[in-house]
């Protein structure tokens, strides 16, 4: 499971930590480090394995972070990756960032251990993200299923 390292308030990280009864202090500490050093972290003994990605502004290309994230998934040989970063969008949709993420994913198709990709999308931006998805995964659109 990959989550934005936002240790404050009712962010997805807090909800997930509470849901799986993880040690919140440890997760908080890891998230703080991730943001301070702008590095992706893997907490491999948690179930499901947790991958923390530093916070972004949403206005820049996230290719480098995606490279790090994919390297992290390889290190734990993830076959299923739940991408939660766009499950709740606070302001406007970070189009540049989402496009760079999709582009990166379309490039690595056969060079990753990931077989199933679960993409959480904020329901307010479902249509827009679907359109972007079509641009990179036009042939495999059949796999795109909205789960409410």
């Amino acid at each position, binding site marked *: 499971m990959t989550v934005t390292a936002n240790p404050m308030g009712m962010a997805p990280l807090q909800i997930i930590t509470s849901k799986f009864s993880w*040690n*919140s*202090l*440890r997760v*908080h*500490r*890891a998230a703080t*480090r*991730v943001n301070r*050093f702008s*590095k*992706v*972290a*893997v*907490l*491999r*003994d948690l179930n499901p394995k947790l991958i923390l990605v530093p916070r972004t502004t949403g206005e820049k290309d996230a290719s480098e972070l995606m490279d*790090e994230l994919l390297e*992290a998934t390889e*290190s734990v040989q993830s076959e299923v990756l739940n991408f939660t970063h766009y499950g709740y969008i606070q302001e406007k949709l970070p189009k540049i960032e989402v496009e760079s993420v999709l582009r990166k994913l379309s490039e690595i198709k056969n060079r990753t251990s990931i077989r199933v990709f679960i993409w959480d999308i904020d329901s307010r931006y479902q249509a827009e993200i679907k359109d972007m998805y079509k641009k990179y995964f036009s042939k495999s659109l059949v796999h795109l299923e909205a789960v409410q």
Partner: protein
Amino acid sequence: MSMVEEFKGFWGTGVELSERAKVLSGKVGLKSEKLTERLIRFYTAQGVLDKPDRLGREAAYHFRHLLQLLIARRLVDEGVSLVAISKFNLNKSTDELEQALLNPAKDAAKAVIEKYREEVVTPKELPAMSSSPVAIANVLSEIKDLKQTMNEEVQEIQKTQYQIDKSLNNLIETQCEFYKRMESEQVEMRHVVLSTLERMALMIEQQNKEFRYQIDMLKKQAASAQDEMLVLLNKQQENRFFK
């Protein structure tokens, strides 16, 4: 509150793990000087610690690693092999590791059992079994060799036991002699002290007699002197009266 409570939320680099380990080692009665980042890297490579988390490309550790590191350090000091420690550390839950660290006696006993299993119970690899007579002969010769080795070891143990018994007997004899000598010296000493005391009592009595005799003599001299004085005084008075 448990003494490890404050470390449960730990997550950090090898250097930070080393620092935390040094703090906690003092509380659980372990020496801290060997708990370096280098040792942590070595233990990780040997599989004594769980595979670490990652922060970018660096290793990151947490509470479970801290427990594993301290338990490993303690067991190494007690002479347990890294393989046995690895089995112990990786197969236990975090709660069990915490208990093992806080109750070292149980922990050490379990590790010793692991070591015993590893060294003694693991059977030597036998030649592949098949129905051919050559293979059966090989197995039989292997068993024969094992029996011979065992007999030799038993003889060695018996020899050592005999030597230990002999040494013990010698020790007991030496001790008996020592006690006897001590006893006779004690009797002699008592005799010397008693005779000295008797001699001193006699001397005191003699001195006492002499002293009494001298007092008697002095009294007699004083009495005769007094008589002479009285005679002289009487004479003087008579003279004064006739004048």
